[in-house]
């Protein structure tokens, strides 16, 4: 048994895909030439004032409600003060002791276990600009000079703060993946990790297994890769345990994870921590949340992944695993549901969607729903299997030929003569041929090696190029041998 258990909490930052920035009318855009989406407000020119983006508030409320948070009747913006070239006002407009939403919960799966993480708060803030440091290090220390692109500065951000409820690095990774899926589902962010549209800080501490008390935590800042997060936590965990087992204390500090060495190094200690001097932003009045409007936002929420997974289990009789694989993200779920609507057998369809179809998407580099394989086409193949029109193995050939020849499944079956052979006489003849060709195996079978049944069936299938009705063949083989 482990003597120590980790306790992990997360702060997740999500860039919202609003048309315009959090506090000005500049476009939110990725990949445009530097400093082409700026104005006096997001460049912090003298006298410029912020105005809250109503759509950003709506998006943030969507996230809050989807996480089961309550939305207090008012929330307040604060100034978070620190100097850095990517922060033109030298304060970030954020929220502090009166955030947009509090007290939520996020349930997520780790393997077959359903875990629950409390959400402390959801609040709104603005993103910093993008700094590029010239020089080898790529960091500000040691760079020759740095340049700033203010296009990103002022992009609406939502920060989601969890309670320290996460029991392992792997669980942290799973939570983040499923949280990202939820946010994408809400239509408020594309969560493109490479663009930094979702990033997170993690804090981790360890405590004696079963203890209720929290140990001293360290923080890992600003990560945007699930893999690095998990690696960082997995390297930090034994380090803390070693410190504690040596009878020493873990220092509260902020750590930097180096993916190349796989280790963490201190960035700054608690003593060096910023004093952000939070105070209420006097340029903005408190946001009063009309309960009726909040309810409108709630009513307009799409079906959330967790609910959809549950519905897939019940409606289609799928296993938890299958329901999650198909139902957790909207594009695949939509594809599956469209295919299932044709009346195809749901379990068979699920297998084909998760197997052949996903493999095809991966190979072709396509998103679910794109490409030649429409829900109707995949459903068509599955329906032919269920109806006994093609065998399971011939269906795989139909799928492949459908792609190369760009034709309907039924036409492929017709064209290539792939229809299932269910004719008793024809199959009995094929069985007889196989038995004649394999006298030794017939002998062995009759001597009690019943496993060889599969061999004979396989040989018949081979002879019929997979078109034979496998169940019928099996019955015929047994009948012939038992005579």
């Amino acid at each position, binding site marked *: 048994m482990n003597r120590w258990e980790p306790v992990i909490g997360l702060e997740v930052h999500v860039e919202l895909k609003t048309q315009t920035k959090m506090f000005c009318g500049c476009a939110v855009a990725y990949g445009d030439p530097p400093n082409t989406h700026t104005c006096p407000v997001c460049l912090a*020119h*003298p*006298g410029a004032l912020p105005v809250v983006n109503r759509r950003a508030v709506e998006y943030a409320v969507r996230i809050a409600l989807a996480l089961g948070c309550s939305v207090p009747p008012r929330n307040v913006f604060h100034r978070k*003060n620190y100097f850095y070239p990517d922060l*033109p006002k030298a*304060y970030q407009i954020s929220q502090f002791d009166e955030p947009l939403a509090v007290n939520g919960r996020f349930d997520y799966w780790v393997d077959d276990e359903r875990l629950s993480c409390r959400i402390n708060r959801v609040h709104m803030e603005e993103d910093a600009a993008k700094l590029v440091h010239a020089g080898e290090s790529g960091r500000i220390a040691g760079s020759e000079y740095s340049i700033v692109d203010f296009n990103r500065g002022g992009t609406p951000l939502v920060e989601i703060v969890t309670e320290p409820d996460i029991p392992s690095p792997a669980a942290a990774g799973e939570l983040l993946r499923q949280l990202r899926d939820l946010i994408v589902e809400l239509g408020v962010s594309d969560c493109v990790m490479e663009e930094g549209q979702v990033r997170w800080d993690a804090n981790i501490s360890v405590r004696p297994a079963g203890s209720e008390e929290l140990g001293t935590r360290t923080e890992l800042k600003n990560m945007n890769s699930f893999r690095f997060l998990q690696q960082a936590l997995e390297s930090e965990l034994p380090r803390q345990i070693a410190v504690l087992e040596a009878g020493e204390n873990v220092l509260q500090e902020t750590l930097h994870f180096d993916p190349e060495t796989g280790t963490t190094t201190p960035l700054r200690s608690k003593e060096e921590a910023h004093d952000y001097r*939070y105070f209420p932003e*006097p340029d903005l009045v408190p946001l009063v949340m009309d309960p009726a409007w909040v309810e409108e936002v709630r009513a307009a929420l799409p079906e959330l992944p967790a609910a959809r997974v549950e519905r897939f289990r019940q409606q289609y009789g799928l296993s938890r695993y299958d329901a999650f694989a198909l139902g957790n993200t909207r594009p695949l779920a939509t594809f599956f549901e469209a295919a299932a609507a044709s009346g195809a057998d749901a379990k068979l369809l699920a297998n084909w969607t998760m197997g052949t179809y996903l493999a095809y998407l991966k190979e072709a580099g396509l998103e679910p729903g794109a490409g030649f394989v429409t829900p109707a086409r995949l459903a068509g193949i599955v329906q032919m299997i269920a109806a006994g029109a093609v065998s399971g193995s011939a269906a795989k050939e139909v799928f492949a030929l459908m792609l190369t020849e760009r034709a309907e499944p039924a036409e492929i079956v017709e064209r290539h003569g792939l229809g299932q052979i269910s004719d008793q006489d024809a199959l009995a003849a094929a069985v007889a041929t196989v038995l004649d060709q394999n006298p030794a195996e017939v002998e062995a079978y009759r001597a009690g090696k019943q496993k060889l049944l599969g061999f004979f069936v396989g040989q018949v299938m081979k002879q019929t190029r997979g078109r034979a009705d496998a169940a019928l063949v099996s019955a015929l083989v047994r009948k012939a041998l038992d005579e």
Partner: protein
Amino acid sequence: MSGLDPLRLTALEAKRLLREGEVSAAELTSLYLRRIAAVEPLVHAYIQVCADDAARYAALIDSEMTASRGALAGLPTAIKDNMVTEGVVSTSGSRILQSYSPVYTATAVRKLFDEHVVMLGKTNLDEFAMGSSTENSAFHATRNPWDVGTVPGGSSGGSAAAVAAGEALWALGSDTGGSIRQPASLCGIVGMKPTYGAVSRYGLVAFASSLDQIGPLTRSVGDAALLLRHISGADPQDSTSVGLPFEVEVPTAERLDGVRVGVPREYLAAGIDDGVRTRFDETLRLLEDLGAGLTEISLPHTEHALAAYYIIAPAEASANLARFDGVRYGYRAAGCDDLVEMYERTRSEGFGAEVKRRIMIGTYALSSGYYDAYYGQAQRVRRLVKDDFDAAFAQLDLIVSPTSPSVAFAVGSRTDDPLAMYMSDLCTIPVNLAGLPAISIPCGLSEGLPVGFQLIGPAFSENALLSAAHALERAIGFAAVPELRGAGQAVAEVTP
């Protein structure tokens, strides 16, 4: 035209003369530009005079805007230099913005431009509006036209001195703790701070965001009403602006029958100069003569207002002024080796002593472990100060006091004593903390220098306040004008 006296001409009169064709915009502008050329070397009211642009624009109004003239077309106007004006350097009186040319125009100024005022120039101020004497400007101290050995008050001392000296028909100022009313008082003109939120702050370089408000400095109460009418209004670019729920009317009241006026004893308790007190008491009697009823009242938290103000204003300022970091615009120290050195030297060299003092006070007041004791406590006091006013206004229409405890003081006499300087704003600061409208009108002279009388109204009572001020202004009949020693001498150069 030859009969026009820039020391006495009101905007309402100038507007009438322009409309009736008795004077052209070019002639009127020329009158003020000549006056500026003559007296500016003594007064130093402006940081920048836009003589050529003003003359050109006035000529344009005369020649091309015959049918489509704005309501204020051709009226020569001065703008405090902490309001940004596109393409016209706007310094806020600071070295750190010495050559900063804004890319947009402040909403209040733009609204005046939309009515075709002629901007004569940008007026001097205490750096970032921090001060009560206009001696804290990075460029030069402005002098009081009544006695150039004294200060004009501040921080809108440039605007006040320009109007008083006949260097502008009227002007815009900004008021955070008295920065319009106190210089108006010391310069013998009218100055009004509107209700917080009546005028957009967009483009006003922020000092203390929750206290700042733009307002008029004029030669008459009627002019103040006219100017307020055109600068007020909700602005989608300022979330704290709400405008006024009525059209501002040019006041005509002559009597104040039945108006209930409170005189807070705390404002008169200590430190009011005898001469100021005498003029104030005389004015109270005039109020009674006009039919108003006087009551002595108490605003018990007044004594804490100054302390609360000097926490809240510096705290907000410490954040507001953090954007001046040398990265994007404005002054940047040369030859720095790294980021921290650039920040430190840029700000050390770019800001003056008073600004640094307030940034440090504000930073300290907000720092971890001190927030509750300072900023939190100051906000509670602010609430109590507001409650005092609310309780008083449940029974009253107006509260009156001297605007400043003293008349204009000698240049340099308080620069080494920040506390004495802060006391100049004793009677004006509580009004900003409570967000109320107030107006200062001249009520006579003491030792040859003007005394100001302050009228404070409930929030959004501008029309009633202007009416009362107008009736009282008529009764006072203040007609003195400053006699500038050296004025009228031919002066070759206008300050750049």
